[in-house]
């Protein structure tokens, strides 16, 4: 069988459109996921029993169920349960926020707790309230330790957006699937799709590596 470059050429505009949606879902979803993850992670690490239990339940619920089930639940079950109607894009972004948030929470908790407790004591001994100790002393040290595992999670979440094919979001994988269904050029289309994913994850890796190199690791 011959590899037909013109197939890719024709499909490229649609695939790039899909890639754009993939990036949008990933970026917005991860921004939200970071907020949720920091909140839940700090609740786990420093919260009282109640806050800790809430965060623990959330994390276990999300880590214990597949992301496809989660997005199906948000898109199909929520409208029936609570009369909340969302479009596919909102459902997709929410799924990333909720899903990545749970994993990021564990990353945040782990890196904050890995900071030597002497630093916390030194901060408290100066007469600082705990929140300032977290913001100015432990946070900056913990943040540096978070970068490698966060990078991992960012890449996983980016690739997870391909699963939103099930609710009809026109992201990269969905675009590839639709073109393929029309012209049956599986080799060309899936090669192109794979390469586009590689370009996106590669860029992400590069950004993370530069960030890591610019910081003094502690």
């Amino acid at each position, binding site marked *: 069988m011959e590899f037909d470059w013109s197939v890719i050429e024709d499909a490229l505009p649609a695939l790039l459109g899909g890639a754009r949606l993939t990036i949008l879902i990933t970026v917005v979803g991860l921004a939200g996921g970071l907020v949720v993850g920091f909140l839940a992670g700090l609740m786990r690490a420093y919260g009282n029993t109640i806050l800790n239990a809430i965060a623990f339940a959330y994390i276990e619920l999300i880590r214990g169920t597949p992301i496809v089930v989660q997005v199906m639940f948000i898109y199909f079950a929520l409208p029936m349960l609570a009369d909340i109607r969302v479009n596919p894009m909102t459902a997709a972004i929410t799924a990333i926020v909720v899903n990545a948030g749970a994993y990021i929470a564990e990353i945040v908790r782990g890196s904050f707790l890995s900071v030597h407790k*002497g630093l916390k004591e*030194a901060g408290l*001994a*100066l*007469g*600082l309230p705990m929140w*300032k100790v977290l913001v*100015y002393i432990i946070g900056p*040290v913990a943040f540096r330790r978070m970068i490698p595992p966060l990078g991992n999670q960012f890449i996983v979440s980016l690739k997870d957006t391909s699963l939103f094919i099930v609710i009809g979001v026109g992201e990269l994988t969905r675009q590839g699937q639709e073109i393929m269904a029309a012209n049956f050029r599986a080799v060309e289309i899936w090669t192109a799709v794979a390469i586009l994913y590689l370009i996106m994850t590669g860029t992400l890796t590069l950004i993370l590596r530069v960030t890591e190199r610019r910081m003094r690791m*502690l």
Partner: protein
Amino acid sequence: MSIVEFRKVTKTFGEVVVLREVDLSINAGEVVVLIGPSGSGKSTLLRCINALEEINGGDLVVDDISVLSGRSQVRVIRQEAGMVFQQFNLFPQMTALENVAFGPRRVRGLSKAEATEQAKALLQKVGLADRGHHYPSELSGGQQQRVAIARALAVKPKLMLFDEPTSALDPELRHEVLRVMQALAEEGMTMIVVTHEMAFARQVGTRLIFMEDGKISVDGDPATLLKNSENPRLREFLQHVH
């Protein structure tokens, strides 16, 4: 007027009783040296003063504030009582200068310029004026500990707590830290020092306290006690640390 007053203070870790109804009164200007075998409660006693450890019984009053009077009052106590740790605990993401300027900025609310100015003077005082832009990892242990002393002094405390400040240092680096502490004592700073440095106790200390099993068993003049103590346990202990 005492600046630190223990009234029947008890401290337990689970089942283990670390301090047993300790009574102790320390006046401003005293340089108290705390010694005792490991596990005798001397570090815990020190850490109760700035409420890094919560007491389980009795009362502990520091500069007229009880450690039991709530979080915001505890923060005031901590600003009055600077602490120096065995492991230095410098903030690794900050330079020496930033470490020292940190307290005045974030605790006392000084501007960055004022805090930095003050930090420079303090680094000068501990003999590290030329090391301000080094990170802790680029400094020797002795230098790190001197930065830590400057950091504690920057908040302008009324008394200083030292928790085995030279125990993590090589012998040849200890004297540079001890010299700074001696200078501080000569300026009239109230100091409570947990240490095994008997020469420091003799030369700088105004009072020696020997702890055993969560209680103060000997309390008196360092020179006299170190020369000949009547307490056989203290005599035995001194033979081991000399």
